[in-house]
């Protein structure tokens, strides 16, 4: 066999091996493990993340962190958002309103999915809660009483859809009660969907 044929056979074999390896790896070895995550009815893992408080309409990183287990006894609503997602920005004030109305029973935590540049993202949010396409009465709202946090480590704990905005309701014992579909909620939808878990 001359050099050319050896080279051709080696190249084809290598290519075949790479393809077979990839097919085996992605389909049988690197499985999604979505069953490992907390779904409806499962106890949620505990987590501790940075939180921000609002002072004079400005977000300030709090010295204290947010720990989920501190809120046993209260229903915890986790709302996940990202700065580039307009429907997310638009629905945050509605979740804050829900928090204010039922604050004795529920703790709403608004979690930003981008772990970097959190301060910049929140400052930008205060000035631009939602763009003109989604303009509403809340467009210049800067009073928030719910908790704001930033972490990309929380959403992977749950069996959520791949996108934002998505919301998780945890009951007073930290068990997952409800996971919303990925998509926007107006205030009425927030109340309709979440009130029954209080």
């Amino acid at each position, binding site marked *: 066999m001359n050099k*050319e044929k050896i*080279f051709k056979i080696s190249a084809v074999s290598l*290519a075949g091996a*790479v*393809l077979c390896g*990839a*097919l085996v*790896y*992605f*389909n049988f070895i*690197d*499985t*999604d493990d*979505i069953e490992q995550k907390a779904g409806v009815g499962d106890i949620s893992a505990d987590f501790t993340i940075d939180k921000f408080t609002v002072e004079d309409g400005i977000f300030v990183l709090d010295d204290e962190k947010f720990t989920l287990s501190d809120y046993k006894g209260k229903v915890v609503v986790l709302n996940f958002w990202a700065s*580039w997602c307009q429907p997310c920005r638009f629905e945050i004030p509605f979740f804050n309103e829900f928090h204010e109305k039922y604050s004795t029973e529920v703790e709403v935590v608004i979690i930003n999915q981008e772990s*970097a*540049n959190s301060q910049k993202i929140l400052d930008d949010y205060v000035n631009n809660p939602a763009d003109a396409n989604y303009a509403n009465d809340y467009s210049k709202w800067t009073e928030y009483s719910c908790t704001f946090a930033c972490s990309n480590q929380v959403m992977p704990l749950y069996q959520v*859809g*791949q*996108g934002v905005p998505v919301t998780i309701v945890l009951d007073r014992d930290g068990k997952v009660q409800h996971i919303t*579909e*990925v*998509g*926007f909620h107006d205030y009425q939808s927030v109340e309709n969907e979440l009130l029954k878990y209080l």
Partner: protein
Amino acid sequence: MKKFFSKIKNWFVKIKPSKRKIVQLYSALLYNANIKGFFNGRIYEGKTKNMCVPGLNCYSCPGAVGSCPMGSLQNALSASGARTPAYIFGIIILFGLLLGRTICGWLCPIGLGQELLYKIKTPKLKKSKVTRVLSYFKYFVLIGLVVILPLFWAIPGFCEYICPAGTIEGGVGLLSHPNNASQLGNLGALFSWKFTLLVLIVVGSVFVFRLFCRFLCPLGALYGFFCRIALLGIKLDKNECTDCGLCVSVCKMDIKRVGDHECIQCGDCISVCPTKAISWKGSKLFLRKNNVDLPADTDIKPLNGMLKPKADENTQGGADNE
């Protein structure tokens, strides 16, 4: 019985895909090796997603194991207030320097899709001066939707408004799974536009060779800048070339000269050159002189005589001289 088997054998030899087609199919499968994604309706989010594939293949395809270079570029430019997107620039430059538009001809699933559609037997639109002019439109797509919109408005314009790969791989790919049925309610005018565009491109590709590649694809536009300096690709021996223009007339892309920025390095021109002036770069390393690969298609017949050179075709430029 024997006749049947010999008929089968002849049929198989006739339909056997060319080397290039095999490589295209291979790469399309490799880019989308995460087949389980189609069965569970979820995008793969593992570590290999940090790497771009060379061709156009949507990040949001349930089968995709890598990122799309155009999607990554727009994403990086949208966030470039935070930091310079050196990584994605580097990867695209690396692909361009190594392969240039051989990616278009050999490693892009969307190019493959269009070529397969073109095989459907209908009348075909021949290339012309008009199509040559239209081929410059993709540069506007590149500058406007891939550079300006992300950089200044943080909008991934090409992904959002045009890309048919995204519509069919990401959009249809995800929406066709029952787990994602709730997302059907989120579809609006934008999806209607993109789906219409997809249908137009698919139907158009039956009649117009590589319609998307020639007129719309910003990635092809970008890789075209590397046509002279890419390590792999087609090269023209200017000493052997007689300016007969056969290569340009056989070529289905809007080239002015073999190996220019419109050339997708498919190699169809190699077998028609009467003086064997066209070959693969680096072919001296692997093939003996004048031993050039013939394509499996048998409807391209080399002419023994020479044609009158076309008046407006001048073969100039930086073709290699060995």
